[in-house]
C-alpha cells in the first residue's frame, strides 16, 4: 500500500489532515443559462448550469403542486485519466439522484407549481470528491437563477486515510484510503441533506469525521457567499 500520510503528518498532496484543497467559485459563467457557476476544488473542475423554472416536457412528469427538480451529473470523457465513455454510467445516474436529493430540501419548490428546474453538472476534470464540489456549485447556480431557497447547500467529504481522520479526500485517498464520507449541510438551518459512507469507521471516528466535515462546509459556505456577493454587488457588497 502507498504511504498516504508521511511521518510529518502531511498527506500525499502536502496537506494537513484538516486542510481543504484550494477552492475557487465563479458565478454566472454561462450566458444562455438562467443561472450558472464554475467551481475548482483542487483538481476538480465543474461547470453547473440551471435552467428554469420552465414548462415540463414530457408533460406527465409535471406535479400539480410543486416544481420538479431534475439533475444530471455528467463526466466529460476527458475528465479522468482513461477515457470515460460519454453515455451516463450506473455511477453517474446514482450521483445525479443523490445530488437531487441533497438540493431538494433547500429549494422552495412549492412556489413554482407545474414547472421543472433542470440542473446540469458537467465535470471537466475529476479528482475525488466531485459530487461534493458539484453540490456546492449547484447551490450557487440555483441562487444565481433566482430560485427561492430556504438555505444554501454546502458539501464536503471526510474520511479515513492511514488510520487518521481527514477531510476533503482527493482521488488517491478516496481509492486507497479506508473510508470516504461525503456530507452536505444547510449551514444556516443546521440540517444535513446528504450523508454517505463508503468504508468502515468506528463511532468515535464517525463523530470526529462528521464534525470536521461540518466545519469544512462552513468554510466553503463563506466562499460560496463571497462569490455571489461579488457577482451581484461588486465592490458595494464588500462593505
Amino acid at each position, binding site marked *: 500500500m502507498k504511504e498516504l500520510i508521511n511521518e510529518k503528518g502531511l498527506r500525499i498532496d502536502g496537506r494537513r489532515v484538516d486542510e481543504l484543497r484550494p477552492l475557487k467559485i465563479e458565478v454566472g459563467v454561462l450566458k444562455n443559462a438562467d443561472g450558472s457557476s464554475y467551481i475548482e476544488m483542487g483538481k476538480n473542475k465543474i461547470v453547473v448550469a440551471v435552467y428554469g423554472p420552465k414548462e415540463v416536457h414530457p408533460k406527465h412528469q409535471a406535479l400539480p403542486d410543486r416544481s420538479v427538480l431534475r439533475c444530471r451529473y455528467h463526466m466529460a470523457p476527458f475528465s479522468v485519466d482513461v477515457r470515460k465513455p460519454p453515455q451516463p454510467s450506473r455511477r453517474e445516474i446514482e450521483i445525479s439522484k443523490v445530488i437531487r436529493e441533497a438540493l431538494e430540501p*433547500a429549494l422552495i419548490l412549492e412556489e413554482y407549481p407545474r414547472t421543472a428546474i433542470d440542473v446540469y453538472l458537467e465535470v471537466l476534470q475529476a479528482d475525488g470528491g466531485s459530487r461534493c464540489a458539484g453540490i456546492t456549485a449547484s447551490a450557487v447556480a440555483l*441562487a444565481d437563477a433566482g430560485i427561492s431557497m430556504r438555505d*444554501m447547500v454546502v458539501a464536503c467529504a471526510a474520511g479515513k486515510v492511514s488510520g487518521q481522520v481527514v477531510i476533503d479526500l482527493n482521488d488517491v485517498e478516496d481509492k486507497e484510503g479506508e473510508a470516504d464520507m461525503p456530507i452536505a449541510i444547510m449551514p444556516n438551518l443546521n440540517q444535513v441533506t446528504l450523508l454517505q459512507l463508503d468504508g468502515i469507521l468506528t463511532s468515535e471516528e464517525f463523530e470526529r469525521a462528521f464534525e470536521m466535515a461540518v466545519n469544512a462546509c462552513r468554510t466553503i459556505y463563506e466562499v460560496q457567499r463571497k462569490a455571489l456577493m461579488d457577482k451581484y454587488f461588486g465592490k458595494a457588497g464588500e462593505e
Partner: protein
Amino acid sequence: MRKMPAIERKYVTPGELIAEGSYKPIGNVIRIKDKFYSTKVGLAEISREGIRVIPLSGPYIPRVDDLVIGKIVDFSAFSWEVDINSCFFAYLSAQNVFGKDFSPDRESLLRKFAIGDLIYAKIIAYDRTRNPLLSVSGPGLGRIPKGEVVKISPAKVPRLIGKKGSMIKTIESATNCKLIIGQNGIVLIMGPPDGVLLATQAIRMVESEAHLAGLTKNIQNFLSKYKEVGS
C-alpha cells in the same frame, strides 16, 4: 411602544439571517421561530411594514393586472398561445379580441395576430392551477407595430420604472423616445435611431447597477454627458 428603526438595507444571499424579532414577512423571506432568513440574492429591507428582500435575479411569475409584452407562438381555433418570458405560456382568447359572438367559422384568427407578432397585453386571470389568461382590450393594448425590443431581468423592472415612474421619465425625456415596459422584463423603445441607441445603453446601465443607491442621479448624469457630446 417599541421604537421602530428607519428603513434598514442589507445585501443578502439565500439562507442569510436578516433579523430576529417580531416582524411581518412581506416577500422572499422565510420565518423560522422568530428568525427571518432571505430566500434570494438581493437587498433586504426592514421597515415599519415588515421585512422583505428585493431580489436581483429570478424568473417572471405572472400576476393578475400585470402589463406584459408577449410574442404569439401558436394559435388554435379559439385562442392564441403567447410567450410571455415566464415558465408558463399565456393564452389570449379569440372572444376577447373579436367579441362574445366569435365563431371560428366566420373569423380567422390570423386576420388579427400572426405567429411572431408582438403584443402588449394585460393578465386578467392567473392562479397556481392554470396558465395565465391575457386581454388586449384597453387603451394602448394590442399589436405592437414597430420599435426596438430590449430584454432585461424581470427582477429589475421596478428599478427601471423608478419611484412613481421617475426613471422611465428621465430616460424618455433625455432620448426623445417612448418606452413601454412589460412587467415580464421586455422593454419596447420607440423613437429616433440615436435615441433608441442611447436609451438601450441607459437601460443596460440600470440593469447592471440596480443594487446601487442614487441610481436615477447616475442615469441623469450619464444621459446629460452623452447629450453634450452628441450636440
